[in-house]
Structure formats: structure tokens, C-alpha cells
């Protein structure tokens, strides 16, 4: 019989064992009776001689060698029954653990993704970044000739492409790469092939797996299709694998195009362009150090081959196995700090669960004593209790993984939105943050380890204590109460701290959300319109835009339209120097932001005119030059007198070749361009009066923004009509839509994420403190049972008993709250950088946090206190008598 059969035939084996032992006893009895003993006496003696029948059976079962499995199955069954019998305890326990473990897994998924993952490429350990190196294509070529060091060298740069030939276009993240980029990196295409060296014809490109899915539904016929980048046709030749998102961890790309494929798209002179990042693959068996030394030895050669103008500093090599990341530097410390907080919360969660189990063990004393009397060994009982803990923490881990999956994505989304703001106009510089937070082996292993560790941490102490053969009354362990109390004080303190932080972040968020914008983002649609790069240079672009505006203006549902160089909420990007007459005091500086706008701008945005007039068609190229300034401008340059401002003159430098003196015709309210920064001085100049040549150059590079105010509630519904109207003017125009209202919501994402994460930890800590207090109070009540019983028996009022119990709790909570407030005040300076419009030592927040903790603590402690005041006296004394040893 093998072990599996033995395991499956357990019940049959048990029956046989029973029969065998019974047979033994019967024979013994028969022998004694034959020797002349009375039947009853023979039976008694036989049983006595045999010893404990159940113990012998247990030992026989042990001899089967499968006890571990058998008992595990039984323990599991028993644990399920116990947990189901105490749904309240189980739910509290599982939730506590789910959130504690989930928080850790979520943060770890982020940490793992950002810090620990190696690139999903072939042999990532052989990949190196070549740094301190002027990254030009000629340097890359020169380096790649060192064939005994590198099997391949490639350069790349990130950029943003506008995808689409006309009509609505989409900005996508792109990579310009030198030939052999994918081969060097060690990436095989998921479909199609990699880029070839150019041999004429339409330039080639590869698309990412996600673009392939979203644009082409993952169909194979996408390969061979032509897509337009900035209006230029490219042929799709391949798709990169799903998990490869480039070598910049935290970033992603949609399109890979060969550098220099198209002259109008390549930046600057090819040789002179030093902005490539360079990576190389080491030959098999070459170590990083050996390669670095060899490269430095041959630097002179490499330099000469590259044309001699580059590589002034010694080239260095850095391992690229984990990729590079600017996010790593930015977020590593905050993430590890949060990880530490999560770990601390987990530890406190474990301790809380331990307390809870200890409190419960008091109630299970009888059960465990009976089990011991029936032949269960100490180890067996301890194991049974540990299995219960493990089951709790496994259930918790399952819930925790779900929480982690959702939480880590939420955080990444929040960070992504934040980054768009950091780069100002979304289309310049790589904007999207992309972190692969799918659960890999690391995350799963981490979660399993945390789960087991958790179970052992919170289950071990109660298991050992409860498995004592004859548990003495808990009153003998009075000296052990001290660390438990200390724990509660720490829990309360931590809850206060986290609540204070969460409160500050929430108030920050509320303040930001309530900041007056100075314009009305609702019912507004913003369209960036770009002309194709190959449009004839001789053709003036401004008239096209004016025709576009006229076409959209007459659409039903559109109340106002306006053209501008900068779009609202996307940051000013035109910085000018101004001189006012009479001159402002020198020390205020002379910088102002500027925007070129068409008439109707202020009406379209809903920005209030405070003084003077708005622009109109009167302000043409031949009319006197005019300017409108904002309140911040008046404050800075005119000493704040709005009334006096109109009629003054402003000379603007840096916007156009000539200095032009403009007369202020109006003052408008400050309109926000970024939520967090104060409004800078700003001035508005009519588009019609801009210098033609500079404006045309700008239009060619960046296009114009069309603002549309809709009469309906849903401006997005106008998109189709607007696109159609613009395409009728010129089908080659490329459009990108944005919604200022959505942008404002997105720009609050970081605050929302911080408020969410800190709120989450605060509530978790508060819940843990509540559960912990409940456990400690219940324990104390159990210990003082007799005392309470005597008080009640002598006529003490139940209210008095409650007061007795609660006073103790109040001392613990008071101490904890005091510590929490002190720590919050001490740590407040760390928070101030993340806060907006609220003091880090805000008294109201501190007070609210303390009150909240006190209320929850009071509630948690009053349950056992109330129970104590309603003690059944008879039960109480009988119980005490039973457990006297």
C-alpha cells in the first residue's frame, strides 16, 4: 500500500485498527475468565492493563507515517468549522489581514516594477548603457566596430509623433532608433520583422503591441499598412512584443522609427545631433569591467573614427539589465518610505490579530483542555491553532491580492496624470508613465512569504500559550500585559499620525479643487490644430486657421470660438521681457508670459474683463498696437492700480524681431495656467497684430489652438461636427482634442492618489487600533472577571463597572494620542512640500484626528466594557471555580 492509498483508505484503516485492538482485549478477557476471574473484573483489569485505548490508537496512526497529511486535512476541516462558527471574528480578521497584506503587495508591485525587474529581453545581463558619450549616429557606428567587445551598439531617442495624415490625430510616444536597435536590445518582433537598413522607398516603422491591439485589433494585416507620422507616410513592418516597453522603465512607446528616415522629421544635422542615448550588447564572456577598460583604451581610435569632434570625456559603461529610469530616482525613496509604513502597519496588524487571538483563547480554554485530555499533544494543539491562523491569513492574502491589483493600478494611473502636468504641454517630451504592475513571480513570492510570516507572527504566541497543558488563569500573567499595552499606545499614536496626514492631504485636495480658475472650463472644447510638415512654406498658414475658425463658429451648438497660441491650463510657453512706462521699480523683474489670441478669446474662456475693453476686429494689423494684461501684471508692473492701467504703454521684447510699444486697452481677471502655481504676470496680444514671419514659423512648428464654447452640457458631443467642419477647410489638418475640465480633474490626480493612499493607511491603522483595543479590553475584562463579579454582587452599578474598564482604556488612548500629536508636529515639515493652502501644523486637523481616534477607541472598548457590566454572576463564579488549579 503506498502512501496515497493509505491516505485515501484512512477510514477503513481506522476501522481495522479498532477491530484489532478490540480483538486483543476480548482475547485477554477470555483468558482471564478462563483462569477463573469474574467477567466484569476481567474486563476492568484488561482495560487497565492495556492503558489508554485512544492514546494507543493515536500512536498507531502516527506509525502510519502520514499523520502530517491526515492531520492537516483534519485541521483544515476543523479550522473552517471554527472560523464559520465565529463569523464576526473571521470577517474582522480577514479584512484586517486583507488590507494589511494588500497594501504591502500593492506597494511591492510598484517597487518591484520600478526597482527589481530586469528588462524582458534576451540575456539582459549582457546589455550595457554607454554613458558619458556624445550620442550621435557616427559615434554609434564607430563603437559598433569594436566587435570583440560589443556584438551590437545602437542609439535611440524618445520623442512624440502625431499619428494620422489629416483629421483627428493622436499624439503617441515614439522612439527614433539607429539600425540594429532591436537586435542589440535583444527583442524579437511579436509579428512581422524588425527595421532594415534603409534601401529607399517608403520609410519603415514598427509599432508597439498595445498600439497594434488598440488601432488594428491585433490583426496581422496591420503589417504592410501605411500610417502617417506628422503627415508623412511610413510602412508598418513589425510589432514589438507585449512586455517590451523600451529600456526606460516607467516609460513606453507606441512607434519605433529609424532615425533619419525622413529629413523633415529628423532633428538637426545628423552628425551634430548628440542627443541619442546609446546602449550596447557585450560579446559573450566579456565582463562589464573588462569591456569598460577596453573601451577606454581604444577611446582615441573610436573618437577618430567618429570624426574626432566627439567623446571629449572617458566613456563609461553601466549595466542595463534593469533598464534605466528617471522615475527610479524620483520615486524610489518615497516608494520605499511607503513600503516601510506599509510594513509597519502589517506588523501592527499582526500584533493586533495576536491580541485578538489571545483574547479569544481565553474563551477557548475549555475546548483546548478537553482536546488535550482526549490525547492531543501540545504540538498537535499548537499546530491546529497555527492552521487556523494560516487559513485566516490565506483568506486575507486572497483579498489582499485583489486589493493590490486594483490599488497598484490606481496609483500608476494617478502618477501618469501627474507627469503630464510636469512636462507642461503634453506633446513635448515623453509624457506617459507606464509601469508594468502585473503580478510576476516576485510579487507572488512576496505575498506568499508575507502571508506565512503574518500567520506565524500573529498565530505563534497565542498557539504556544494556549497549548500549555493546563493553562493557568490569565491573572498569573499580569506582568505580560505591559508590552500589549505598549502596543496599543503605539497603534493609537500611529493612527493619529496617519489621520493627521490624511486630513492634511484631503484639505489640500479640497483647497485645490476649490481654487478659482479665472475661466469656465465646463462646456469648453479645445482642439490643437497642426498643419502637415510638408505644406508649402510660401503658403501663409494664419488665413487657413481663420477659415477653420469661421467654419466651426457657424456650427449649431457652438456659441463662441477663438484661436490662440497657448491653450488654457496647458502652461504658458511664451516668455517675454516687458518695459512699462512709467518704468516699474527695477527689482520686480521684467518677465511676463504672453499669449497671442484672436477676438472672442475672453468670451470663449469666460474670463472676466475688469477694466477697459476686449479685443475686436478693430485691432487689425494696421490699427494701433494694443495689449491686454492680467491682474498679476498690473500688480507687478503698475503697482496694483487697475483703473490707471488702461492707457499705459508696454514695450514687449522677445516675441518678435522689433520692439513694439503697445497701449493697454483692458485688464482681465487672473486665469490659472497651472493649479499649483500662483498666476504669473501675463499679457495678451491680438493674433492679427503679431509679427507675420515669427508667427508663421511658430504655426509651422506647433500649430494653433482652437477654443470652442458649446451651448450644450456635453462639449464632447460636438467633436464629430467640429472635425468634419475643419476637414472641409483642409483635410490635411491634424487635430488633437482636449477637455480643460478633464485636464483639471487629471491634474488633481496626484493629490487624489496621495489623499487616497494616506487615507487608506489612516483608516487601516484606525481599524487596527480599534481591534487591538477591543482585544486588550476583552482580555482585561476576562482577567478581572472575579473582581467585577464581586463588585456587581456587592451592589456595584453596571455603569460603575463600565467606568472602571473604560478609565483604563482612556489612559492608553490618551497616551497614544499625545504621542501621535507630538510625532505629527515633529514630522510636519516633511509634509509641507506636498501640501497646498494648508499649514502642516493645522490645529483643526490635529484636533479632528484626535477626536476621531478617541471616538473609535471608545466604541471599540465599550463593547467588552458593556459585556463586563452585564456579567452573569452565577456563570462568572462557576467559571472561576472550574478553572482554579
Amino acid at each position, binding site marked *: 500500500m503506498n502512501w496515497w492509498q493509505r491516505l485515501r483508505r484512512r477510514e477503513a484503516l481506522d476501522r481495522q485498527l479498532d*477491530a484489532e485492538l478490540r*480483538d486483543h482485549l476480548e482475547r485477554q478477557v477470555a483468558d482471564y475468565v478462563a483462569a477463573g476471574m469474574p467477567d466484569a473484573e476481567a474486563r476492568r483489569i484488561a482495560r487497565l492493563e492495556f492503558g489508554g485505548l485512544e492514546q*494507543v490508537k493515536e500512536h498507531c496512526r502516527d506509525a502510519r507515517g502520514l499523520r502530517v497529511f491526515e492531520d492537516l486535512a483534519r485541521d483544515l476541516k476543523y479550522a473552517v468549522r471554527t472560523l464559520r462558527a465565529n463569523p464576526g471574528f473571521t470577517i474582522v480578521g480577514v479584512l484586517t489581514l486583507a488590507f494589511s497584506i494588500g497594501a504591502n503587495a500593492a506597494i511591492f508591485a510598484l517597487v518591484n516594477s520600478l526597482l527589481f525587474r530586469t528588462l524582458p529581453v534576451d540575456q539582459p545581463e549582457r546589455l550595457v548603457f554607454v554613458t558619458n558619450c556624445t550620442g550621435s549616429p557616427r559615434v554609434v557606428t564607430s563603437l559598433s566596430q569594436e566587435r570583440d567587445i560589443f556584438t551590437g551598439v545602437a542609439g535611440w531617442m524618445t520623442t512624440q509623433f502625431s499619428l494620422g495624415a489629416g483629421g483627428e490625430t493622436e499624439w503617441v510616444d515614439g522612439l527614433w532608433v539607429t539600425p540594429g536597435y532591436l537586435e542589440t536590445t535583444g527583442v524579437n518582433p511579436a509579428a512581422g520583422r524588425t527595421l532594415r537598413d534603409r534601401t529607399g522607398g517608403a520609410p519603415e516603422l514598427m509599432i508597439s503591441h498595445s498600439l497594434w491591439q488598440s488601432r488594428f485589433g491585433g490583426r496581422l494585416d496591420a503589417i504592410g499598412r501605411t500610417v502617417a507620422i506628422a503627415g508623412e507616410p511610413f510602412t508598418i513592418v513589425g510589432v514589438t512584443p507585449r512586455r517590451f516597453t523600451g529600456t526606460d522603465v516607467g516609460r513606453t512607446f507606441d512607434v519605433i522609427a529609424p532615425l533619419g528616415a525622413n529629413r523633415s522629421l529628423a532633428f538637426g544635422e545628423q552628425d551634430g545631433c548628440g542627443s541619442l542615448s546609446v546602449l550596447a550588447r557585450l560579446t559573450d564572456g566579456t565582463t562589464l569591467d573588462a569591456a569598460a577598460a577596453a573601451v577606454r583604451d581604444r577611446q582615441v581610435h573610436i573618437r577618430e573614427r567618429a570624426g574626432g569632434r566627439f567623446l571629449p570625456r572617458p566613456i563609461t559603461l553601466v549595466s542595463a539589465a534593469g533598464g534605466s529610469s528617471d522615475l527610479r530616482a524620483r520615486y524610489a525613496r518615497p516608494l520605499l518610505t511607503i513600503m516601510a509604513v506599509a510594513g509597519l502597519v502589517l506588523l501592527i496588524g499582526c500584533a493586533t490579530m495576536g491580541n485578538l487571538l489571545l483574547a479569544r483563547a481565553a474563551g477557548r480554554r475549555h475546548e483546548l483542555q478537553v482536546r488535550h485530555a482526549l490525547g492531543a499533544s501540545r504540538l498537535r494543539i499548537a499546530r491546529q491553532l497555527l492552521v487556523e491562523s494560516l487559513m485566516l491569513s490565506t483568506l486575507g492574502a486572497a483579498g489582499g491580492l485583489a486589493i493590490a491589483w486594483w490599488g497598484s493600478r490606481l496609483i500608476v494611473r494617478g502618477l501618469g496624470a501627474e507627469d503630464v502636468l510636469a512636462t507642461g504641454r503634453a506633446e513635448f517630451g515623453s509624457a506617459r508613465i507606464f509601469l508594468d504592475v502585473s503580478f510576476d513571480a516576485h510579487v507572488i513570492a512576496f505575498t506568499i512569504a508575507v502571508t506565512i510570516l503574518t500567520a506565524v507572527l500573529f498565530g505563534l504566541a497565542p498557539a504556544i500559550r494556549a497549548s500549555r497543558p493546563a493553562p493557568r488563569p490569565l491573572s498569573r500573567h499580569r506582568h505580560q500585559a505591559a508590552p500589549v499595552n505598549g502596543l496599543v499606545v503605539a497603534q493609537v499614536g500611529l493612527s493619529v499620525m496617519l489621520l493627521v496626514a490624511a486630513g492634511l492631504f484631503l484639505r489640500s485636495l479640497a483647497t485645490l479643487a476649490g481654487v478659482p480658475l479665472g475661466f469656465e472650463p465646463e462646456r469648453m472644447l479645445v482642439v490643437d490644430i497642426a498643419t502637415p510638415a510638408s505644406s508649402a512654406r510660401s503658403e501663409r498658414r494664419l488665413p487657413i486657421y481663420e477659415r477653420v475658425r469661421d467654419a466651426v463658429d457657424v456650427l449649431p451648438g457652438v456659441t463662441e470660438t477663438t484661436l490662440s497660441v497657448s491653450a488654457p491650463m496647458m502652461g504658458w510657453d511664451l516668455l517675454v521681457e516687458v518695459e512699462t512706462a512709467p518704468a516699474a521699480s527695477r527689482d520686480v523683474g521684467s518677465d511676463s508670459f504672453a499669449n497671442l489670441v484672436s477676438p472672442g478669446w475672453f468670451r470663449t474662456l469666460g474670463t472676466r474683463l475688469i477694466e477697459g475693453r476686449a479685443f475686436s476686429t478693430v485691432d487689425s494689423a494696421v490699427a494701433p498696437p494694443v495689449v491686454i494684461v492680467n491682474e498679476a501684471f498690473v500688480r507687478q508692473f503698475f503697482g496694483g492700480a487697475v483703473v490707471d492701467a488702461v492707457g499705459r504703454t508696454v514695450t514687449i521684447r522677445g516675441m518678435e524681431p522689433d520692439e513694439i510699444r503697445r497701449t493697454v486697452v483692458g485688464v482681465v481677471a487672473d486665469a490659472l495656467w497651472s493649479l499649483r502655481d500662483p498666476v504669473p504676470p501675463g499679457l495678451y496680444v491680438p493674433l492679427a497684430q503679431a509679427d507675420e514671419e515669427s508667427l508663421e514659423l511658430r504655426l509651422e512648428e506647433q500649430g494653433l489652438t482652437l477654443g470652442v464654447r458649446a451651448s450644450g452640457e456635453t462639449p464632447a458631443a460636438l467633436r464629430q461636427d467640429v472635425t468634419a467642419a475643419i476637414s472641409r477647410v483642409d483635410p490635411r489638418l491634424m487635430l488633437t482634442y482636449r477637455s480643460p475640465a478633464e485636464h483639471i480633474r487629471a491634474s488633481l490626480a496626484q493629490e487624489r492618489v496621495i489623499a487616497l493612499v494616506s487615507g487608506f493607511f489612516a483608516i487601516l491603522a484606525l481599524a487596527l487600533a480599534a481591534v487591538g483595543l477591543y482585544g486588550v479590553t476583552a482580555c482585561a475584562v476576562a482577567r478581572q472577571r472575579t473582581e467585577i463579579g464581586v463588585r456587581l454582587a456587592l451592589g456595584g452599578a453596571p455603569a460603575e463597572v463600565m467606568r472602571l474598564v473604560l478609565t483604563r482604556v482612556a489612559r492608553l488612548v490618551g497616551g497614544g494620542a499625545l504621542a501621535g500629536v507630538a510625532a505629527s508636529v515633529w514630522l510636519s515639515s516633511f509634509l509641507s512640500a506636498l501640501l497646498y493652502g494648508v499649514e502642516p501644523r493645522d490645529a483643526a486637523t490635529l484636533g479632528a484626528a484626535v477626536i476621531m481616534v478617541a471616538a473609535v477607541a471608545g466604541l471599540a472598548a465599550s463593547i467588552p466594557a458593556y459585556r463586563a457590566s452585564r456579567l452573569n454572576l452565577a456563570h462568572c463564579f462557576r467559571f472561576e471555580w472550574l478553572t482554579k488549579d
Partner: protein
Amino acid sequence: MAPAKKPDPKSDLPQGTLDMLILQIVALGPVHGYGIAQRLQQISRDVLQVQQGSLYPALHRLENRDLLAAEWRPSDTGREAKFYKLTAKGRAQLKHETASWARLSEAIQLILRAHEA
């Protein structure tokens, strides 16, 4: 036999020898647990006290190690009883253990005699 009164002085079985004794008894022919207990006591003339508490776990252990085979068959009482018999592996083990026991006791005797001398 006076079961309630324990023979005094009685000797504890050296560690590991119970298995050998059981194998030796079973080697004489198929026998049930009670029979083994009886014979252990008879052979050792009541000097060795083997508790049933350790006999049955030992039997089950030996069965699991495939040194003994068990079979349920009708017995003199009319009920089925579990009879143990030696397997080939058990026979080899018995031979091995007897030999090593002989060596051990001889060595101990030698030492004791040397001491006397």
C-alpha cells in the same frame, strides 16, 4: 499470571530491540497481536514488560516498512483477526539485526569479563 501486579525488578527493553523481538516471534509463523504479546511475555519469562501501548504502534510501523505483512483471517474465536507474517524483506532485516545484536552483546560481554579479570 497476575496482571495487575508488576514483576519486580523488571527490565526496560533497550531501544530498537522490540522490533527485533517482534520479527523473531512472527518468524515462527503467522500470529495476531495478542499472540505476540503473550509470547513476548512467555519467552522472556515475565522479565520484560512490554506495554501494549508500544506493541501495536511497533507492529504498525513494521507493517508500513514492509517488514511485516498483515492479513485478516478467521481465528479460533470465530471472529476475524489480523495475522502478521514475515515478508522476505522482514526476514533479511531479522537476520541482519540478530547478527548485529550478537556482535554487540558479545562485545559487551567481553568488556564486562575483561573488567572482572
